[in-house]
């Protein structure tokens, strides 16, 4: 049974709930999600993260992450 003091660990990526991984950077999260498309815009809790910062910015627990894939293709 879950004790009351245990905080749920999870993040929401593009509206889908997934596990939170401690110290995971955006670059690692994109790899875990297999989001290999290069033209993505990433927002954490609505704040845009610049592409150059993907290897350094860590995804906090309980955050909402939007990985917006640009259309391209077609």
């Amino acid at each position, binding site marked *: 049974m879950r004790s009351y003091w245990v905080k749920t660990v999870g993040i929401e990526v593009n509206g889908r709930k997934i596990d939170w991984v401690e110290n995971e950077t955006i670059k690692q999260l994109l790899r875990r999600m297999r989001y290999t498309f*290069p033209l993505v815009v990433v927002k954490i809790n609505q704040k845009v993260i610049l592409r150059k910062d993907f290897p350094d910015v860590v995804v906090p627990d309980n955050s909402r992450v939007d990985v917006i894939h640009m*259309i391209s293709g*077609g």
Partner: protein
Amino acid sequence: MVDGQIPVEEYETGNTKHKWNLKKIKSSHKVLAEYDYKKSEIKNGFANRTLYINLGTNQIKEKKITEDMKKKFTGGRGFGLKLLWDSIKPTTHWDSEENNLIITTGPFCGITQYPGCGKSLCLTISPSTDIICDSNVGGFFGPYLKFSGFDAVEIQGKAKEDVVIVIDGEKGKISIETAPLEETDSHLVNEQLTHMYVSEDSEGSRQNVSVVSAGTAAEHSYWGCLNFSFWDIRRKVARMKQAGRGGLGTVLRDKKIKAVVAKVEKFSGLQNNPADPGSLAKLGTKIHREIRDLDRYQCNMRTVGTGHLVEIMDEYDLLPTENYRFGSFPKASKIYSPNFYKLFTKVIPDGCWHGCTMACAKTVDGFTVMTGPYKGQKVTVDGPEYETLGCGANMSLWDPLWILEFNFYCDTYGLDTISTGTAIAFYMEMYEYGILNKERCDGLELCFGNAEAALEFMHRIARGDKGEFVGVAAKGIRRVKDWLIEKEWGDKQLIEDTGMESKGLEYSEYVTKESLAMQGGYGLTLKGPQHDEAWLIFMDMVNNAIPTFADKAEALHYFPMWRTWFGLNGLCKLPWNDVEPVNNAEADDPSKVPEHVQNYVELQNAITGWNVNKEELILQSERCYNWQRAMNVWMGRGRRKDDWIPYRSMGPVTKMEYVSRKERYDKQLVEILGLSEKEVEDMDIEKKMKLLYDYKQDQYQKLADAVYYRRGWTPNGVPTPQKMKQLGMDEPKMLKMIQKKIDEDEKAGLNVWGGKYKRGENPPSKDLDYWEKG
């Protein structure tokens, strides 16, 4: 010159050189008609006249473009629609005398300051769909047609023997000449005619000639494409870009046209006489810099072209494999772009028109042909582009060399790679189920992965083989479906659900099972399932950004309108969103790439001297989009039933497909249809498939409801007179026609919503006559 680029004089093409007696070939021409015209300047992007040719009567004349025509139809594809409306009947078929083959240019066409401004738009009544087909294409012909003094050329009637049409912008002369001795296959005839019509024997002069042709297979198939040449001064070959979709090449050959040649004396980037060249140059400098600096970190188009999409589509389960059964495949990495990068000739600028820094038109030079009439010869293969690679995956061909062979023969024979590949993939699946077999396929073992059989099938089409299978199969999936059903060789439902066509046109190469919006992007279209109206898979399936029907409908309004706009202007869409400004992420709606949209607003103003804003751009498209749909209605189509799509594009048709993605589909039954995990576990697979089938079909109908409503159409998908008037498209004959069709639908009880709405769910409007209120 770019760093490391090979100087023109040092580059040796390595392709087989042909020795033709061009004098003899040319002297066998008989001039059937000639027309001298007065050369005039292009003003603000428009030549302000079109060229009309009738091959039945040998009539050649000029037609004026009025200001009203520009206001209503803008240019390019819009002009094509107007010329079709004025020249065909609702009963016109692809092979009717009066069918009109039109090549048009927009006001941007020919500009070299901004990338992607060399596109032509081709329109005709398609043999595959029996409605209007439009196809966009690069190469030099469009700009040269414009520089010769015409915004469009339309060709009606049929010649009695093979002809070439020559538009000589140097002399101001049009001629129709018999052409009995030329080759028909495009890589040869384009080279012959370039050499034949060149003013002097130099590479620079050859660059001033462009040829449009189709190959021998276009004569015997409904997949005929048009090959537009552009002479490559380094490779010393007539390279080609294709207007692929809908059988335009079939119509060209049906009219007995071997080729259309356009020739200019010289050209400059400002030959369009833009209203404001200074602004144009400024916008151009900005985008060129952006592409040069950012492409390598983004789509890498300059290095590998659109082929970079293969690995992405495979990763996201969107790469059509074995006739769209799967979206990824273990062997797919064999055709990832690095494997083609190795084969491409590098350090050569690869734009399909001057000034395109995106330069995505890659080639493999000196490729040794492995089969067929050109076996052993060395050729330049233009491509392969993503769609052709997707066809490889669909046929389960994983050897890059076979894909190049397929690419080369499709092009030179004048076959659209997309329709050919998608159709062969369907035949291969039918072969796997025993619905087709060696005997029924005229001795061909057309099973997945059999490249030699696929090529042999194409060679037989080109030879005009009289076998029953080859004859029907070359007409495409729709005819084969009817044939298989008539022969009672297989289950009707299976055949209908797995053959990837809609409106008679084969699908292009994306798996849409998990993206309802993209199902609409293929089905709720004007000409059929081509991704050039909307590509919404990421937005819908990955980003989860358009969750409601209203959201999806908004996207299926905006993007088709936006992308139609490229065709009105003579533009390539790639520089819009295959590169994005560095701060695009911070824009309000990054998917639209707002900074680039603003570039296009300013560009149109700079070229035409108009004063438009971004809303007006969408309106320009809406006018033409609705006009084209109304013309489909006029021809007895363009209703809900015509927007039907095969179930393979919505969900799993076979048990194998379900099992291959079991976790995903089981989850859908729980999360979407509300079944318990236990119920799903206990349920047999047929039942699960049936539940999904009914659900997904209903979703598609609800999507159609929302989209028709958003577009201002009736619930049966017909543009209303009110909508047309609002757009300023108030031609009385058109308005009367659509009102009559709406009344007929009303009488037949067809003006009703298609979705099944449960309690708590609402159709887009409770009032079924909503449009009458304006």
